[in-house]
């Protein structure tokens, strides 16, 4: 007779092929589970899945929207890879995004009546600085006081959100805004140029693709990328090699913060055009899923960002056409992450049923 509960046994070698298929298997399982949920809710699963995943991208506008949502996700996720590769669990990208929006957006507000070619580059640059500075706070706390970066980076998200809240209802409130909690709109030259007439997809996409390419180069070709990887796999080996781990922690946080900051600035200077309370539908948190779904690999992250962006769009359509709460989108994101982690475990371990004697 076999025992009722399996025990988890490490595999001697994990299959490279399966490793590659993990994200795909996770997505398929998510779709199956999603259909079951739709059936339980009383919907035709085929129609529901169609509404969720196909109809949002069946028009040019829809595809443009997909890229609008995928842009910040991919940019933050690639930034997060710098941290995750180094085994630093920065989960405060949402705060770094907010700070980037505040810093860069602040420049936009300051020069709200200036039209000049340098305005947008300056906003992007200052936004990157803002995000990087916010990211450096947990880095300092971690290296000087050995605090857990998971806690500090997360708590700083709420600090950043409250600062934004204060600014848009207080000092930065639009004097002509009828007391709505929002800032003045940025001037035309403080906005991300649109890539196509009539579509919202903007120049942020180009910046993102460029930074993903740069990151690919850093990860695979430079000694800095190698150092990040080694210190992630084995801090002792990194110490033996003489890599300065404090510096690596600072760089990882600063780069991630800067990327998130640029993503935040791209949001406010792109589709939004001003500062207000809800500039991001949790892009900073969702990007964590994107980073892992993309297996911290630049190409993987591009595809993962599109898949997750689709859950955002699908949730909106589902709310419109099926009257399902848009929170269903989060369920799908959660399912993907769940199956991803599960598949990851089963690649390295197997379940065995011990013989009972």
């Amino acid at each position, binding site marked *: 007779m076999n025992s009722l509960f399996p025990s988890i046994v490490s595999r001697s*070698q994990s299959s490279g092929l399966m490793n590659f298929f993990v994200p795909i298997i996770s997505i398929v399982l998510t779709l199956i589970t999603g259909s079951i949920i739709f059936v339980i809710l009383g919907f035709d699963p085929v129609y529901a899945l169609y509404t969720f995943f196909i109809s949002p991208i069946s028009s040019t506008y829809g595809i443009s929207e997909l890229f609008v949502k995928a842009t910040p996700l991919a940019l933050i996720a690639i930034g997060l890879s710098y941290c995750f590769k180094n085994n630093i669990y920065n989960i405060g990208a949402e705060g770094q995004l907010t700070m980037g929006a505040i810093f860069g957006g602040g420049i936009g507000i300051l020069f709200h009546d200036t039209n000049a070619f340098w305005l947008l580059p300056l906003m992007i640059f200052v936004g990157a600085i803002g995000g990087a500075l916010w990211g450096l706070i947990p880095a300092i706390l971690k290296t000087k006081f050995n605090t857990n970066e998971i806690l500090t980076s997360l708590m700083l998200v709420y600090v950043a959100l409250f600062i934004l809240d204060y600014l848009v209802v207080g000092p930065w409130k639009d004097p002509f805004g009828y007391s709505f909690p929002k800032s003045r709109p940025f001037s035309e030259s403080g906005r991300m140029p649109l890539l196509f007439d009539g579509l919202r997809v903007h120049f942020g996409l180009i910046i993102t693709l460029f930074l993903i390419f740069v990151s690919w180069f850093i990860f695979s070709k*430079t000694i800095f990328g190698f150092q990040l990887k080694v210190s992630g796999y084995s801090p002792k080996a990194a110490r*033996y090699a003489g890599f300065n781990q404090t510096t690596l922690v600072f760089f990882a946080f600063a780069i991630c913060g800067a990327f998130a900051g640029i993503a935040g600035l791209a949001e406010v200077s792109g589709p939004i055009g001003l500062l207000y309370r809800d500039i991001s539908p949790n892009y900073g948190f969702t990007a964590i899923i994107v980073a892992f779904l993309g297996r911290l690999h630049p190409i993987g992250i591009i595809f993962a960002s599109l898949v997750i962006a689709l859950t955002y769009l699908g949730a909106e359509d589902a709310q419109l056409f099926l009257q399902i709460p848009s929170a269903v989108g989060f369920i799908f994101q959660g399912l993907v992450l769940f199956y991803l982690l599960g598949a990851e475990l089963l690649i390295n371990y197997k379940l065995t049923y011990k013989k009972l004697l």
Partner: protein
Amino acid sequence: MSDTILNIENITKSFPRVIANKKVTFDIKKNAVHAILGENGAGKSTLVKILYGLLEPDEGNIKLNNKDFKVNSPAEARKQGIGMVFQHFSLFDSLSVKENLILGIDEKMSYSDLEDKLENISSRYNLPLDLDAPITALSAGEKQRVEIVRILLQDPQILIMDEPTSVLTPQEVESLFVTLNALVKEGRTILYITHKLEEVISICDTVTIMRSGEIIDTSSTANQTAKTLATKMLGQKLDDLKTNYEHIKDEVNFEVKNISCDFNDPFLTDLKNISFQVRVGEIYGIAGVAGNGQSELMDILTGENINIKSGSITFDNKKIEKYGPQKRRDLSISFVPENRLGHSAVPELSLSENILLSQFPKNNFIKNGIILKNNVDDFANNVINEFKVITPGNDAKASSLSGGNLQKYVIGREISSKPKILIISHPTWGIDAGAEHSIRESLIELSQNGTSIIVISQDLDELIEITHKISVIYDGNLSKPFKTSEIEIEKLGLLMGGKNE
């Protein structure tokens, strides 16, 4: 046969990547010390784990006193009369000796019964014990005594000892042998697992030699010498290694002066006023039982720890005690810490990538921050060929190599950059005899080409074989150096046990 206690027939056990035991067949005679000799990975541990009920064989039979013997747990094995003392102790450090003994026995027993029994065992087998001492306060030898007594309380017919002398000082080894002889005199049988040739000859009656999971030979030890055993164990003739002092120059190029270091940590050993000098081309050995400050000293020699209280390290007339590892490598100092997986190599990375952990100025691996992959790959291939590392290629992950192969690779990586000094900890720890031999040869060759070497090792045989001078580290103190060719084992043993006379 009436004098056979255990018949092992056709035992086979395979693991995912290896067959650990292939049709193992031999008999163990009653009332004798039976050695199982073999290098690391020969399958000794697998076999005794099967006997002790920790592993289940795939095939084969075992007969104890001519009756079928099949156990599924150590508790069942003990009930049937087989006890085992492991190489690594399983004692509760914070409990006393008596409490540990009570916890270890399967049947219920009152304290007073236990004490009577203990007194009996202690005096009969030369196993004195302080029952109220906490385990933390005991030496390795005393802890082993507790383990032996714990097993003897169950009155086993067969006692399995797994590498029992690996953690003992020479004096403790002798007292262990007295105990073993007393046990055999009483009619018990001892199964003695070892890779030390001298022990087989001095204490065992019969020896079974294993190599790659198979039985090579079972015979009486009477007409065996260390040489004949080694040949059977390794399957190839070993060249004689001889200490040669001629190439050593008078010039000292590495000097450690009065290094002290406090850690404020009960699990680390403070270093006390450590001084020594290494000459050009000299191999300097640091002996000692584990946990006497070796790893702490290693960290200071490599620069992984630069927070010393006082003292200095001088290399080529430069004070380097505040230099980190990379700055030391820039001066052509190279090091190999004890632990391969996760310290001197990253198991998840390829062999090629692992080259980059240790870079010397003349390597030319990096230009403007960009890795020159061709140069790194060439270097890796070179190390693989020159040091006969068995691997499918430089893109194989470090974790896929056996311990010996990975160690050859890591040491090869360091040697290939022709360092002026190599600092190495436990160079042949946990690897097979073939790799051990080739590593020791390359260290000797390196020193003859003018590199100074510092070897920290617990393996006294190794140090005697390759070094020119030996000091002993005990509780963070380093003894004065002894010339290896004139050394007395007795003296070293006393120093390792903390007796400086």
